[in-house]
Every structure is written in C-alpha cells, then in structure tokens.
C-alpha cells in the first residue's frame, strides 16, 4: 500500500508540474474572446511568438493579442504557432486545469495511503532487543552506559587514562545508539504521536548533549567538567525512559 501511495504521489507530482507549465501558455486555437483579460484588455505576449525574418519573432514581445494579431499567428505555417506565452493568467485559458486538479486529488489520496501504511507499519513493527535497531534497546543501552560510568567515576584512573576511558565508553553512544533513536523517528511517531515524540526527543536531546559535553571535556583533558556532565546526564535518564514509555 505504501508503494502504491508513493507511486501515486510521484505520478501526481509529475502531472501537476507538467500541467502547471502551460498556465501562461494557452493554445491560440482558443476563441478571440478567451484572450481578453478580466479588465477587458487583450492579453499581452510575454515572449515573442512565431518565427519572422532572421532572428526576429513574427509578433514581438509585449504585443496585445488582438483578433488581428491572433489571426496573423494562426496563419503562420513555417513553423506553425500552436501556443503563445502571455503575461497574465486566466483560468479559462489554461488548457491543463483539469489535469492539475486531478494531480491534486492524486497527491491527497497518495499522501493518505502512505501515511496510513506508515502508521500501520510502526504499530506492527516487532520489538527487538538490539540497541542498533530498536529505539527502546538503544535508550536502555545509553542509560546503562551512563549509570555504569557514573558508578565507576571514583575508580577511573587520573589524568589522560581516565579521560580516554570516558571517551571509549561514550563512543558507542555517539556512533551507534543515538543514531538508532534518530533513525527510529517514523516508528516512534507512530507509537507516541507528534506531541509525545517531541517531548521524548526534547528530553533525550538534553541527555545526549550532556554526554556529548562529557566527551568533549574528556577529549580536552578536563576531567572535572566531564564528571559534572555525566552526573547531569545521569539525572536525566529516568525522565527520558519515562517519556519513551509515553508517560
């Protein structure tokens, strides 16, 4: 169903875009009256029309499309003139207006099909316990790393070795688990709704930023700042876990 929806949206987009390109390019086979604007004036040529002598167009840019000018264009044969580009848009002159409306309907239906299919997929997705594929497992892994690090802080070696240990332990968070949560957006949106997802990401981002800061401080060899950030991150973990459950 999702594939059908996407195909329908693609086809509708192409149809709508193609139809739009003729909005200012009416066929000259329309009646003379059709070239009158709402103000009563005849429409004006945006570009020169037809082929005249040399590089000159048959009818110059800016000319009003009066019945005489239209007759001159309709009489052209080498090459024949089928359409002209005018400066003003008129619904009645637009040859592909119904194609455009059809395209809009296609986008609406396609969008609906895609959205409902994605929602169904998200709700039906089997839960896994791999932190590289499941957002719940990724949050659990991040929480565990944070708790373990905070617990181990008093035992970490001083100086560069301690900093390197923090960096090594936080690397999987930055490289694997946080990206897993970001990639699970569609799944999480389906489960939590936009409001719930926003609240979860708000808290998770606060936690992630503290861990990133801990990493940077460790990389700069400033252990006390790294420790402060790990404690701040640790304090945020329960809230993140609760928001993931939708509470």
């Amino acid at each position, binding site marked *: 169903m999702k594939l059908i929806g996407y195909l329908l949206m693609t086809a509708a*987009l192409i149809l709508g875009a193609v139809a739009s*390109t003729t909005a200012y*390019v009416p066929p000259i086979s329309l009646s003379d009256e059709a070239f009158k604007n709402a103000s009563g004036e005849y429409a004006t040529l945006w570009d020169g029309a037809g082929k005249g002598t040399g590089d000159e167009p048959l009818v110059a840019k800016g000319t009003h499309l009066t019945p005489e000018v239209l007759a001159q264009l309709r009489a052209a044969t080498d090459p024949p003139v089928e359409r002209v580009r005018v400066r003003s848009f008129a619904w009645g002159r637009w040859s592909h207006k119904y194609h455009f409306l059809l395209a809009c309907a296609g986008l609406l239906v396609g969008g609906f099909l*895609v959205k409902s299919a994605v929602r169904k997929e998200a709700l039906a997705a089997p839960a896994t316990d791999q932190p590289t594929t499941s957002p719940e497992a990724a949050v659990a892994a991040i929480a565990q790393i944070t708790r373990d690090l905070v617990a181990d802080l008093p035992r970490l070696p001083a100086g560069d070795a301690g900093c390197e240990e923090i960096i090594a332990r936080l690397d999987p968070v930055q490289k694997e688990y946080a990206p897993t949560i970001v990639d699970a*957006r569609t799944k999480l949106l389906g489960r939590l709704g936009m409001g719930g997802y926003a609240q979860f990401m708000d808290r998770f*981002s606060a936690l992630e930023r503290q861990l*990133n800061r801990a990493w940077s401080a460790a990389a700069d060899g400033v252990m*006390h700042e790294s420790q402060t950030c790990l404690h701040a991150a640790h304090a945020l973990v329960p809230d993140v876990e609760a928001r993931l459950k939708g509470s």
Partner: protein
Amino acid sequence: MSEPGKGASYREVTFSAIIFAIVIGVVMNAAITYAGLKIGFTIGGSAIAAVLGFGVLRGVLRKGSILETNIAQTAASSINTSNSGIIFTVPVLFLIGLPLTAGSSDFWLITLAAVGGAILGAAFIIPLRKQMIEIDRLRFPTGMGVAAILKSPGAGAKKSIVLVAGIVIAAILFWPNIAHSLDLWNYGDIPLTVNGHKIFTNEEFDAGKLLRLPGQFELIFGLAPFALGAGYITGRAGLLVLAGGILAYFILTPMAYSLGWMPASIDASAAPGYGFSSFNRPLGIGLLLGGAIMGVIVSLPAIKAALKSVAEASKLKSGGDELGLKPLIFAVLGAAVLLFFAADFVAKDPVNQKDFFTGTSLVGDNAPTTIVERQDFGYTIRFENDENASRWDAMDKADQRQLLIDNNAKPGWLAGLPTHVRSAIIAVVGILWIWLAGIIIAQCTGMTDWSPISGMALLTVVLVMLLAGTGAVIGAVLIGAALCVAITLAADMMQDLRTGHLVGASPRRQQIVELSVVAIGPIVAMLTILIIAGANIKQGGPAFGPGTSTAAPQAQALQSVITGVQGGELPYALYGFGALLGALLGLGAFSGLGVLVGLSMYLPFAAIATYGVGCILNMIVAKIKGRRWAEEWGVPFAAGLIVGESLLAMLINTIVLLR
C-alpha cells in the same frame, strides 16, 4: 581524580575567543563582501573560522578547548554571514539609479533595518533550534562537518589525517575551478569538445554534451568538492533533491520543448535555461513555500513542545541551557519598531525623480527650487512647480492611477491607508514573513545545506511592492535587506547550533554570544559597499554593475525582478500552483518533501547533480563497508571537502582583494 564541579572552569565563552571572532569575522566579512560583489557568490564562515580558531586558540595560545573554538567559530561566522544578505539586495539601489551615500538617511535606515533583521534572525532560532535540531533532527551537513573538525583531537590521529586528506583533495579539485579569478589555467582550458561544444567550463562538466544527449536535456556536474561533501553527509535523504532535479531538467523542460510550449526562437540548447527561468524556478519557489507552510502545520505539536520546553527552561533560576522566550519577545518587538520607523521614513521618499509631465529632473544641483509635493495613492509625488501639481489635481483618479502605472509606480494594496498604518502593517507582515522564510531556509540548510536566499529575497521584494506599490523600491529593498540578513543568519546559526549540539556546547551561551556580536556584520558589509561604490565612482564609472570590477551579479538578478514586478512580468500563478503541490506533498509520511522537491527545481542542475553524487557515494560506501564505517570515516573526509573548498576560496578571494 577531582570531584565534579571543582577545579578550573571549562573554557567556553572566553575573552580570547570573542576577540578572535570579532577580528576574523570583520576581516572575512569585508573580504567576502568585495569578492561576492565581484564574482557573485559568498562563502559561509563556520568552517574557515573553526579551522583558524583551532590554529589560533589551540595552536598558538595553547589553551583553547573544543567548546571555546566552537564559540569562536559561532561568533565569527555570524559576523561574516550577514554580507550575503546585504550584497544581494543593497547594490540594486545603485543599479536602478538610487545611490546611497554616508550622508543620506536612506543608507543609515537600510543599515538599521539590516541590524534589526540580524537581531531578529538570531532570535527566531531560539525555538527553531529546539524544534529542528533536537526534535526533528535535521542533519545540517556543514554543522556536522564543523563538529568533525572540532572533535578531531579526541577522535584520534587517524581521523585527523582523513580530515586533512579531505582538505587537500578538495583544494586540488577546486583549484582549477577558482583559478580563473587569477587568470590562471582552469577547467575551462581543457580542450575537450563535442560537435564544437566545450565539455568543461571553469566551474562545470557537461556530461550531457559528452554523451551527446539532445540539447534540451541538461546533465551538468558542478566541479565543487563542497557539494560532494555536503551530499555525502546528507546521505540517502538527499536523493530526493536529485529526484526533483530530474523532474525539472529531464521531464518538464524536454517535454515543454518537444510539445512546442516554448517560443520558436528557443533552440534545444537554450531550452534548459528558458525552462529554468520561465517555469522550473517559479514552481520551485512555490513548492518551497507550500512545503514549508505544510511543514509548520504538521509540526505544530513539535513547535508547541519546543516553545513549552524553552519557556520552562527559562523559568529555572540558573536559566538552564535555554535562552528562554524573553529575548525572542524583546527582539521581535525591537525589530518591529525598527522596521516600522525605517518603513515609515522611507515611505516619505518621493516616488519620482523627474516631473511626470515635463520630465524635468527633480534631484541634483540643477533641480528646480519650486518643487511641490502631493500625497496620493500611498506615494509622495513631486512636481516641478505649482502649475504641474494643479494639472495633477485636475486629473480624475483613473487617469492619475494610469499615469503612475506608466511611470512604473502602480499603487499598492495598502495605498488607501494612512502612512503610519501602512508602515505598521508592512512591519508586521515583514516580521511574519521573516519568520516563515527563516523556517524555509532552516529546513533547506538542515536537510541539504543549500539555502534558497535569492528566492526568498525575490518573494520579499514582490510582497513589499504589492503592499506598498511598485514605486516603493527603497522600501522593498530595505525590508528585503532585513529579511536576507535575518534568514542567512538564521541558517548559519542553526548550523553552528547543530555543531554545538554535537560537541555538547550550551545553546544558551552560543546564542548570547551571537546576539551580542550580530549587529557588527551588517554595519561592516554596508560600509564596505559604500567604500567600493565610492572608489568606483571616483574612477569615473558607475558604482556597481557592468563596466566596473564589481559587477554585483546577484543584485543584477534582483534588479530584473524589480523591473519584472513593475512591468507586470511575474508568474504569480506558478508560485501559487507550486505552493499547492508543495503543501499536498507534505501530507505524506514526510512533511518536508515539498521543500526538498522545490529546492531541487529552484537550484541549477549542476549544483544538485554533484550533490546527488555525494549522496549516492554515501549509500555505496555504507553498503560495502557498513553504515558505521561510512559515518565514522566518511564524514571527516566529507567535512574536509567542505573545509578545503572554503579555505581555498577564502585564500583566492584575499589575493583578488589585494591585487
């Protein structure tokens, strides 16, 4: 082991970082303003400032931290970035014969409006950061690249080598592109031709010609490592940009050409250019607009959550990591007042420089001393003498209106309102539009790194001219300058905040620093413009444009828009149809789809093709080596490509400036 919170504080916002940022920011701003007026494009400052900051703060001073360098690049790039907004808009006044001088009030009003725009741009991203970086998780490729640079000390020597390799390769690849600025050998000198057509220009590789595709099909690749790097960092999601480009350049243009929807005078090789200006670009701008509006509607719960979170954080005693909503409210009110006064003052500028009836010049040393003014149709109209003013008074309204239209001054929608009310409405609409345009730009840069500033400037000028009248050019440029500065700053700041998130910086501190220095940029850029214009005039030529060394290509593009609006030559319906398609596209699973497709129709194919290659390379590398490897090693290399191009461009621009 020290206890948490004890010991010397971690260096983040420091005096050295701020001084470094101001010096580098001002130098970059002036140099890039000049270069931008000369060659038509500007360079983002984040990557350059990060590399220089690294060298100065960590290398020379030997005490800089990752976060201190981040603050330095944030402030320096915010001072630099406003120049692209200024050079796109302000020189147009010189081009249409409305010169600015240090003694003219218009110059200082536009500067004031640009400063207002800068503050507004920096303030609007307070809630946008929360929504787009933390909740929607847009990638902001340059921001990720800069983070890779900043984190390189802790990431290990091997990654630093990969980063440097990226920089070196970018410089090697980009050198023959930019060498034409120094009249040196460049890609354009490669003597490869097919049927008499050159395959290489200094900036592009025409694969379509090489493959002998029909002329109406455009398959051109920009020779730009930056685009390759940005595409790689974006990855699979960026392919949608390529898809939109294929729609524009491989379906719409060839179809319109083959079906005779283009004039007979357009031959196959001219079809892509004609298609780009007549329908692809307008549809693209409309799609951007509609896509962004739908994005806002779909993201309302996220916006609500972002605002709530920012507001709650600001209630904390320490202020937390968020700047809070108060600065946003103050900035909006302050900018509204600035824009109101600027618009109100400019509205009193006369609409005509010559008498409508006699053509007598009403400006300069030879202007008559008996000039008479009338307030009609929202304009201040001047006449040579009482007699001509009475002749105006005696005309009926329809004839007066027609006379104004004949002089490129069609009355605006608000023409019937008192001046102050009109200025107030323009200020409010301007601010709302800046907010929406800021969202569009932030979404575009967040998803792809491309920023459709010219399209937004175009819509701004059109909007103001529709409201105030097509004769209100100074007002339109004034609001346009404010908007362009605001949105370029918003985009740049979002990149910097994305970098900040990745290195764990405090967004509150980043934003305070940005708000503190952001006014410097527009002032430097405006003064640079004034100096260049003065020098050109002193040499006997025009201030800008053809015949000078500063052609101001972007301002020339805006000039054609202004004359287009005055002559009734804008495809409003295409903007509308594009907006409808963009909004409906956002109804699917991904609300930003309209923005991506619109952006790709709006950009030249050469830019998106190279970007698309970067996206595909990411997918191939991920397939072969795994996603983790592609991120861990590919992103530093791609960051190197972005930085290498920026550094080389900056170096060449400096040489051009000194020559």
